[in-house]
């Protein structure tokens, strides 16, 4: 089993995440794209861990930390989305021009 194939897959997933982040206008879908990018990073970490196979499993531990932080990020992010929707009746980032010059 090779490590490179996982890195290529991770690069593809990350690119799709960046595309979604830039193209979609719905805030929830932007957050979904961010999750996609975090997943690509996790694939990289686990792949490098399987290459090094250190005794202290550092790659897997970092992956678990990233999953935890992503869960916290989603909680706060979706609370902010609900807040914005309650105030502006819209989940479209084009409508959020409050701080736009």
């Amino acid at each position, binding site marked *: 089993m090779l*490590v490179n194939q996982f890195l290529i*897959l991770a690069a593809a997933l990350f690119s799709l995440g960046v595309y979604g982040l830039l193209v979609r206008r719905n805030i929830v879908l932007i957050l979904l794209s961010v999750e996609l990018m975090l997943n690509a990073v996790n694939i990289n970490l686990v792949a490098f861990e399987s290459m090094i196979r250190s005794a202290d499993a550092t790659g897997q531990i970092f992956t678990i930390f990233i999953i935890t932080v992503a*869960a916290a990020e989603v909680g706060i992010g979706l609370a902010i989305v609900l807040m914005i929707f309650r105030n502006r009746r819209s989940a479209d980032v084009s409508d959020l021009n409050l701080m736009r010059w």
Partner: protein
Amino acid sequence: MVETIIFVLMGLAAIAGAITVVMARNPVYSAIGLLGTLFAVAVLYVLQLAHFVAAVQVIVYAGAVLTLFLFVIMLIGVDKEENREENLRFQRPVVGVLAGVIVVMAAALTAFGDFDWVPASGAVIPEVTNGTIQAVAEPLFTDWVLAFEATALLLTIAAAGAIALAHYRRRESTDG
């Protein structure tokens, strides 16, 4: 050989799910596409002997995070069509050409470049035979205990902040 077949199948499933996430018109389909990607990636973790990470992936991501996403999507309504009109006229073709160039360069590098195909380590750490929970838990609670506690604090703050945001009212009402 079996590993390669599993990788190809699950990789294609992950890519298909990711394309669904970024392309689907209905946000619910996007969420379900992410679910497919998460499960495929969990299978890839098992392929690399990271069983515990795979379990965490399914429980936390596919279980909790995606439920939260679907909940919010349902709450703010799925029937509103996204405005996908492009305001900058030449942006799409230029980006298409640039993306094509990058893809061709990446493919050429992969095919002809001086490219090392690194094999995964065949060595299996002894703890793996007892399940990777032991292998992960021991350094987590010794070397990384400070980061672990900081993450616990972060999660507490995030939960409190989410509740505070959801309860916030601009005008103070009596029901609190």
